[in-house]
């Protein structure tokens, strides 16, 4: 039942994305940036999805420390992995965009740099997990690290507000926005679809993780006999 629901959600997410791609392709090229600007319809949603995933990771890490229930540890890994995937997409779309607009792959401004550091930090989380063998210890360390790491997330978000950056100023949730309403709608749908996609991926990873756990405990039982 749960799986069917997941598949359904996934299919819906893809359907929305497909529809939006079609619509976006129909938008006229922007004055200054040509067709390159259209990447924003994927750039922004992937950051939103990444943020959602990482927040989930933070919450489940805290829950794990409070309850010591390994279910939350599994959720934390799943969410972090998906989060890192979307961070990568965010960085990649950003870079792809930067190349035609700025003429270079990378510039060192607060937004880009803090985003890169965020990525490094959560990649570090995954590596830390690999390096610790004892399951309880691994879960504890990972949870602690996740809490400490999350502090960078708001910094990334606010970096364009706190510092002057090359990165475009905020368009949404700020007064100076100049986005046409129908574009905003498409953007909204895309964000929804991406977040749904993230949820589906997290659930799938979570199921895998739980299956792995069950296999492990079965194997352990076999070893104990």
């Amino acid at each position, binding site marked *: 039942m749960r799986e069917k629901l997941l598949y359904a959600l996934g299919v819906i997410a893809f359907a929305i994305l497909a529809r939006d791609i079609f619509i976006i392709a129909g938008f006229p090229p922007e004055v200054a940036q040509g067709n390159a600007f259209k990447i924003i319809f994927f750039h922004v949603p992937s950051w939103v999805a990444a943020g959602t995933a990482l927040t989930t990771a933070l919450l489940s890490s805290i829950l794990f420390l409070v309850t010591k229930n390994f279910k939350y540890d599994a959720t934390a890994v799943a969410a972090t992995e998906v989060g890192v995937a979307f961070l990568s997409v965010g960085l990649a779309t950003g870079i792809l965009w930067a190349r035609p607009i700025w003429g270079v792959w990378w510039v060192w401004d607060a937004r880009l740099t803090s985003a890169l550091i965020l990525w490094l930090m959560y990649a570090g989380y995954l590596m830390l997990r690999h390096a610790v*063998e*004892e399951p*309880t210890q691994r879960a504890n360390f990972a949870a602690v690290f996740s809490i400490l790491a999350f502090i960078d997330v708001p910094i990334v978000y606010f970096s364009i507000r706190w510092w002057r950056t090359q990165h475009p100023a905020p368009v949404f949730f700020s007064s100076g926005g100049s986005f046409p309403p129908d574009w905003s709608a498409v953007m909204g749908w895309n964000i929804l679809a991406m977040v749904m996609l993230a949820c589906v991926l997290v659930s799938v990873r979570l199921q895998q993780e739980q299956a792995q756990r069950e296999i*492990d405990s079965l*194997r*352990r039982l076999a*070893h*104990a006999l």
Partner: protein
Amino acid sequence: MNALAVEGVWKYYGDYPALRDINLTCEAGSCLALIGRNGAGKTTLLRTIAGFSRPMKGAIKILGGSPRETATRRNVGFIGHGIAVYDELSALENLMLYARLYGLTDARTKALQWLTETGLERVRDGLVREFSRGMRQRLAVARAFLHEPSLLLLDEPFTALDDRAIAVLQRLLREALAQGRTVVMSTHQLREALELATHVTMLNRGQVAFDGPCTPEMVADPGLVYARYGEG
């Protein structure tokens, strides 16, 4: 109330069950000799009791409390495979450090007293780095006894000790038992251990293979338990 109660403890390393459903109790004033072949799980059990790692299943009660409570820790002394003293500090400094950590009021007196007990007063200002193996082990003994714990967890405490130091340790343990303190020790030097033990527990591949009082028979022939209850 039992000084130590181990209830259905399981501990895994990866897939390998190092401890399988261990049940044990120790009354105050008793001395448990934990024996078993190499890799049986003695060290793992002692470390779990001491609270260095949590059991995967089951519970451990020390003097009625959990191993990680501060009150409990104050009453436990541990000697592990490592000797847990600092190479860069002198014998006296090491003992004073631990005396302070345990909040003893007369750190220096206590430290000197235990250096004398273990025959190290001559080298009290020598850095541990310069000690022979047996001298280190003596210092570890002094460290564990320093705060007069009511539960002593000793992992192969006789290792590297010469005959005289073994006699001293046996005397110290006997005194401790007489004062109603409890001792759990693992060892392969059965002769030395069984002289003191009131109970014997044999582990075999992480399971309790034998658990019972220590009989004069066993003391006379230390190989007996292995011969009778070992895997053959």
